[in-house]
C-alpha cells in the first residue's frame, strides 16, 4: 500500500521533471522559425539547448520505463488506448532528434530550412500533444470492461485542447527564459520581450484551465477533502508571479528556475487531484485504473525503489554539473564545434 502510494508520486515526479527540463527545449524549438532572423541566430538558439536536450529527453524514457515497471497495467492500457496520439508524439520526437544533428552538416539554405521545420514540428507537436494527453487523463477516458472506446479526435475536446495550449505556453515562456540566459545582444532582447509579453497569455490560459478543471474533471475533490492541499496552488501562482518579477529584474536564471517550479507545480496540481487514480474511466469508476489495481508486485516495487533512490539523485547530480559547465552564453566556439 505505502509502496504503491510512493510509486504513484514518484511516477508523477518523473513526468514533472521531464516537462521541467525538456520543456524549455520544446519552447526554443517552437520559437526557432519566428525568433531567429538569420542562420547564425538559429544556430545560436539550437546551441543554447545543444548540450542538454539529449539528457533531458531521457526523463521521458525514464518516465515511460517506470510506468512499465511500476504500473504495467497502466502502461499497457494507456499506451495501447492512446495509440495514434503516442505514435504522433514519437514521430515528432524522432524528427526533432535527427534534425538537431543533421541540420548543421550541410551548408545549404533549403537543406537547413527542411530541418528547421522538423525541429519546429518536433517541438511544438509533442508540447501540445502531451498537454492534450494529460488534460484527458485528468478528465477520464471512455473505458469499460470491453476496453477503450475513444478516438484520436475524441481527445481533441475543448478541455484537452486547452491543456495542449497551456503546455505550449508554459514551454514557450520556459524556452524564452532559457534563451535570455544563454544568448546576448539582439536575440536576447527579442527573447526578453517575448518572455515578458507571453507571460500574460500563459497566466490567462493557466487560470482558464484551473476554472475549466472545476467543471470538466473531479480533480478538486481531493483538494476539498484536504484544504491544506490548496497551498500547492498558492505556491504555483507565487512561482508564476516570481517568474515575472525576476524577469523584470533581469535575473534570468532565477526567473527560469521559478518557471521550472511553476511547471512542476502544474503537473503536481493534476497528480494530487488524480490520486490514487492513474487512468480514470469516464463511464464508471469501477473501470478506473488506480495505483492499487495496476501496480507490479511488491518485490518489483521495492527493487525499483532502491534503484531509483540510488540512481536518480546521481543523475540529478551529474546533470546539474553539466548545466553548470555550460551556464555561460553560447560562444563562437560552440557554433563551430557542433551547430
Amino acid at each position, binding site marked *: 500500500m505505502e509502496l504503491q502510494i510512493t510509486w504513484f508520486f514518484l511516477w508523477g515526479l518523473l513526468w514533472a521533471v521531464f516537462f521541467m527540463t525538456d520543456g524549455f527545449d520544446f519552447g526554443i524549438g517552437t520559437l526557432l522559425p519566428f525568433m531567429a532572423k538569420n542562420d547564425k541566430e538559429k544556430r545560436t538558439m539550437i546551441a543554447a539547448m545543444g548540450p542538454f536536450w539529449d539528457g533531458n529527453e531521457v526523463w521521458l524514457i525514464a518516465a515511460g520505463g517506470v510506468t512499465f515497471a511500476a504500473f504495467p497495467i497502466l502502461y499497457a492500457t494507456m499506451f495501447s488506448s492512446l495509440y495514434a496520439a503516442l505514435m504522433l508524439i514519437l514521430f515528432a520526437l524522432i524528427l526533432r532528434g535527427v534534425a538537431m544533428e543533421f541540420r548543421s552538416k550541410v551548408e545549404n539554405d533549403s537543406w537547413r530550412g527542411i530541418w528547421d521545420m522538423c525541429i519546429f514540428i518536433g517541438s511544438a507537436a509533442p508540447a501540445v500533444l502531451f498537454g492534450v494527453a494529460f488534460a484527458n487523463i485528468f478528465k477520464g477516458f471512455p473505458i469499460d470492461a470491453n476496453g477503450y472506446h475513444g478516438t484520436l479526435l475524441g481527445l481533441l475536446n475543448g478541455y484537452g485542447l486547452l491543456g495542449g495550449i497551456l503546455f505550449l505556453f508554459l514551454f514557450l515562456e520556459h524556452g524564452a527564459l532559457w534563451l535570455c540566459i544563454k544568448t546576448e545582444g539582439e536575440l536576447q532582447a527579442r527573447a526578453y520581450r517575448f518572455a515578458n509579453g507571453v507571460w500574460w497569455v500563459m497566466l490567462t490560459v493557466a487560470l482558464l484551465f484551473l476554472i475549466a478543471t472545476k467543471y470538466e474533471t473531479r480533480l478538486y475533490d481531493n483538494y476539498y477533502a484536504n484544504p491544506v492541499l490548496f497551498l500547492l496552488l498558492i505556491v504555483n501562482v507565487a512561482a508564476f508571479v516570481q517568474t515575472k518579477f525576476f524577469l523584470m529584474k533581469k535575473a534570468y536564471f532565477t526567473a527560469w528556475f521559478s518557471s521550472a517550479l511553476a511547471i512542476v507545480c502544474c503537473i503536481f496540481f493534476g497528480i494530487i487531484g488524480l490520486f490514487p487514480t492513474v487512468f480514470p474511466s469516464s463511464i464508471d469508476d469501477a473501470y478506473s485504473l488506480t495505483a492499487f489495481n495496476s501496480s507490479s*508486485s511488491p518485490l518489483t516495487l521495492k527493487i525499483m525503489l532502491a534503484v531509483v533512490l540510488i540512481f536518480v539523485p546521481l543523475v540529478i547530480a551529474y546533470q546539474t554539473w553539466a548545466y553548470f559547465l555550460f551556464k555561460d552564453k553560447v560562444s563562437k566556439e560552440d557554433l563551430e564545434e557542433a551547430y
Partner: protein
Amino acid sequence: MDVVLLSRLQFAAATMFHFLFVPLTLGLSVLIAYMETRYVQTEDETYLRMTKFWGKLFLINFALGVVTGITLEFQFGTNWSRYSEFVGDIFGSLLAIEATTSFFLESTLIGVWVFGWKKLSKKAHAACMWLIAIAGNLSAVWILIANGWMQHPVGFDIRNGRAELVDFRAVVTNSFAWLEFLHVVAGAFVLGAFFVMGISAWHLLKKQNTDFFTRSFRIALPFGLAAALFVSVVGDFHGAHVAEVQPEKLAAMEAHWETKTNVPFYLLVVPDEKNETNLLEMIEIPGLLSFLVTGDVNGEVRGLKEFPKEDRPPVLITFTAFRIMVALGTYFIIITLIGLFLRKNLADSPIYLQVMLCSIPLPYIANLAGWIVAEVGRQPWIVYKIMRTADAASPIAASQVGISLVAFILVYGLLGAVGFWLIARNAAKGPETANLAVN
C-alpha cells in the same frame, strides 16, 4: 493481415532499423575513447584529429540510434499490451533500470563531450568518452538481460495471471542473457572495427591522408580480430546452451529433423519445411554437429520432429540467417588475420583494401542475421514456453497498426537514407587539416 502479424512486422522493422545504428555506437565509442586516450598520453595531434573525424561520424550515427530507441521503449505498450501486462514486473523493470543507470549517463555525457572541448581538461574529456562507451555497453547488458528473460525465463512465478518476480538475482545472472550479451557486444565491436577499416581503406586507395588512415586502420585491426575471434568462441558456447534450453531453436538453426546420435554437419543444405526433410545435404563432416552441440562426436542432437508442429519455429528463415551469420563470422576472422600479415604495407595492398572497403556492410548483415536467429528462432513464443506471440498483441484495430507500419517504413527509410548519406559524405571528406583541429 491481422493485428499480430502487422505488429510483428512493425516491431521487426523498428528493432532492426534501431540495430543498424546501435552496434556502431557500441564499437566505435570504444575505438574513439582509445584514440583520445592516446592523444592525452602522447600529445600527438593526429590522435586528436582522429578523435574528431571518427567522432563526427559517431555522432550522426548516435542520433539515429537514440531516436529509433525511444519508439522501442513505448512499442511494448502500444502494440504488445497483453505481453506488457503479463511481464511488466520483470521486463518493464529491466527497461526502467537501463534508462536510469545507463542511458541517462550516456545521453548527458554526449552533450558534454560535444561542447566540452574547452571546458574540460584533456584527461576529463577523454574520460567522458570512456564513460559514454561504458554506459552504452551497460545499456546493452540490461536490454539483453530483458531479452534473455524472454528466451529463457527464470526467477518468476505465475500469480494473478501475470509473471511476477520472485528472484531478482536469478533474472540478472541468467546465463542465457550473459552469453547473448557477450556475443552481441563482440559482434558490435567487429562492426565498429570494419567500419573504421573500410573507410580507411577507401582513403588509402585514393592515397589521401595516408598516415592518418594507416594509423586508424591499424588501431581497428587488432580490435576487430580479437572481437571476431571472441564472437565465434562465445557463439559456440551460446549455441551449445541454446541446444540445452531451446532445443527446437537449435534444430531449426541446423535444419535437423530427426533425433540422432553422431550427427554429421553438412556444408550445403536446402531445407524442405513442408515435407519435414532436407532437399539437399552435401559435403558431410562426420560427427561435427554432435561435437559442436554436445562436445562429443557421438552425442545426441534432438531433431525438429520430436516437437509438435505448432511449437516449432520457422525453419527456413532461422536456418538461412544462422548460416549467413556463421559464414560471415568465419570470413571476419580470416580477413582480419590476413590483415595482420599486411599491416606494415597496407598502402601497397590495393586488393586487400578493396576487399575491406566492400566489407563494410557485412558485419551489419551478420548482426541483423544474428537477431533474426534469436527472435524468429524463439517463435511461436514471445516468452519461451510461457506465452505465445499470438496471445500478446494489443486489442486494437489492425488498420491503426497498418497506418503506423507504413509511417515507420517511410519515415525510417527516409531518415536512414539521409543518415547513411551524411555518414558517407563526411567519411569521404576526410579529417580536418592538421593545425586547425586544436582550436
